[in-house]
């Protein structure tokens, strides 16, 4: 018998009725399994339904259709305070009139823990988030990063079965955000609690997650490990939303040695080892900038796609070359800056863009 997922969504649909605009579906038939002890991220632009989904698990919203299961048990209709699930809110929502210890101990108090156990647990939690000295302060006296840690400690204190995090890092500055990303990952590992993390920041999702679900307008487009969704995007939106990507249209013209031959817009022909690519079908191909290389020249016959460097953007670790391909689109090529001061190509120079074998990804629209 397979282990029941921590959170399962079965055909979950949420329709909002807005005056004058009719119906809008925040979620349209979402099926999703979030495994136990997993750092799972819901990634998507604002309005994609990720927060609605989170609120359904928390109990602040109910699906119009479908089911939400927690460890195999349906939790429909249970109010938030009856669900063994806690939330870290985007705004932290710390109780301003209570001390830090009062905030962290609030859930335990509501659950009727005896005072001594409660205090021990609060101390343990404040240690866990590395704020052991601040129990008596009020939230208003803390910095943003400290408030964030208190919110985490508060949500973790009652040992929830699942911790929901609603864009908890969006209010922090970049440096603090990087720190907290590592901190969150550590907390998840140490507590062994399933984390469901909502964000619109693809980099955040890649850094922290065990698995990512990429969402757009109420649909889950792709679920997979960070490496999986980055290197093998199946959907045009996923390819574009996560990282940088170069897209080119093409048409399947035939087959050779078990590979499909595709004529790209602009005249190049490539061979693809991909399933389900029927002859005559138009396809969209994607390739990551770091899977491309610049070669000198720009003539035909050297295996590359000739073009002209339109722009070279230096960004420390690497340089992005925008190359206008002859007869085709403009590709971004990212070259690592290994030796200082050595530009591989100058603006206006003729070059060839060489694609690594197997770098092409076939996308659905």
């Amino acid at each position, binding site marked *: 018998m397979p282990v029941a997922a921590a959170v399962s969504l079965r055909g979950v649909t949420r329709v909002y009725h807005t005056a004058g605009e009719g119906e809008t579906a925040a979620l349209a038939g979402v099926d999703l399994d979030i495994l136990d002890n997993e750092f799972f991220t819901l990634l998507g632009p604002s309005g994609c339904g990720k927060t609605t989904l989170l609120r359904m698990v928390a109990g*602040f919203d109910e699906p119009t259709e479908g089911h939400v299961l927690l460890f195999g048990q349906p939790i429909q209709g249970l*109010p938030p305070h009856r669900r063994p699930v*806690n939330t870290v*809110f985007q705004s932290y929502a710390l109780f301003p*009139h209570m001390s830090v210890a009062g905030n962290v101990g609030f859930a335990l108090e*509501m659950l009727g823990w005896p005072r001594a156990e409660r205090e021990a647990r609060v101390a343990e939690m404040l240690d866990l988030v590395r704020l052991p000295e601040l129990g008596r302060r009020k939230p*208003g*006296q803390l910095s943003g990063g400290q408030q964030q840690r208190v919110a985490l400690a508060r*949500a973790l204190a*009652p040992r929830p079965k699942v911790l929901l995090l609603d864009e908890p890092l969006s209010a922090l500055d970049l440096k603090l955000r990087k720190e907290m990303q590592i901190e969150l990952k550590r907390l998840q590992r140490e507590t062994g609690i399933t984390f469901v993390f909502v964000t619109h920041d693809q980099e955040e999702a890649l850094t922290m997650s065990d698995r990512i679900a990429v969402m757009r307008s109420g649909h889950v487009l792709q679920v997979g490990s960070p490496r999986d969704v980055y290197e093998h995007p199946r959907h045009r939106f996923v390819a574009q939303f996560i990282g940088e990507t170069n897209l080119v249209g093409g048409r399947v013209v035939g087959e050779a040695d078990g590979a499909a031959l595709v004529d790209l817009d602009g005249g190049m022909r490539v061979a693809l080892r991909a399933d389900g690519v029927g002859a005559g079908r138009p396809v969209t191909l994607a390739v990551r900038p770091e899977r491309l290389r610049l070669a000198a020249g720009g003539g035909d016959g050297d295996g590359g796609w000739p073009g002209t460097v339109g722009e070279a953007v230096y960004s420390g670790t690497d340089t992005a070359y925008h190359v206008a391909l002859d007869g085709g689109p403009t590709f971004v090529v990212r070259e690592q800056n290994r030796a200082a001061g050595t530009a591989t190509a100058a603006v206006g120079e003729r070059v060839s863009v060489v694609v690594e074998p197997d770098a092409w990804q076939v996308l659905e629209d």
Partner: protein
Amino acid sequence: MAASLDARGRLGQRLLVAPALLVLVVFMVGPLLLMGYVSLLEKGTYGGVQWDVFSGEAYVRFLFERDFDDTLLFNPDYLRIFARSLGLALWTTALALAVGLPTALYIAMQPPARRNLLVFLVTIPFWTNLLVRNYAWILLLRNNGLLDGLLRWMGVTDGPLGILYTDTAVAIGLVYSFLPFMVLPIYTSLEKMDFRLVEAAYDLYAGKWQALRRIVLPLAAPGIAAGCVLVFIPCLGAYVTPELLGGGKALLIGNLIQGQFGVARNWPFGAALAFALLAIVLLVMMVYTLRFKRPAEGGR
């Protein structure tokens, strides 16, 4: 250069506050000093005061009466009237809170457009003169009035209730008159409250009542305190409502003071009573200020 700009800025600021200061001095501090002066004078034989004869008699009279041989006997009559007024004001405040808090909570939980409409409705009674509204309550509360008729028609009672000209009628009238002063400050503090905090409380295993008691009420406390003070103080010195709905039968501070300036023709005593009332009000304000107007710790 900066200093002269600064000085000009300060002069400008003083000019801004000048009209208010002028009004305060002429219409508030002046009369207050005059009243204080009057309370320390000998009363005139036919009303008014003897402007050049000083006496502490008015304050003595508040607590004592003079026997025939001029010995002072403790006389709690006036204290009793003060106690009655205090009791009635407390009752009214409690009733206004019991009605006003749920009302404010309800309004604060409505969508914004509806909220404004409801707040507007709360203030509608202010459009009519207080006297007119009190007469309206006489029509409602009197024997065989609207309330009696309604209750009898519904079969709840079979005779007149006899509410009018009792403390109950006064309390009803006062609650009605001052309810907006309770609802509006509480609503203001609830409206500022982040309702996501309530969501957080639910999420952390608090039920509805616990969320109300532990989160909503503490955060609305400044508004509740302000509402209570705003109802309590005018109730303490209320004059029109006790006179009309209480029939002036049972004396309250307001009516007592009015009587001293009117029929009793004892201005110094009236002024002294007014100062005793002022003392109570200042005491309440002091407690309120110490307890609820502390600058917020640490800030945001």
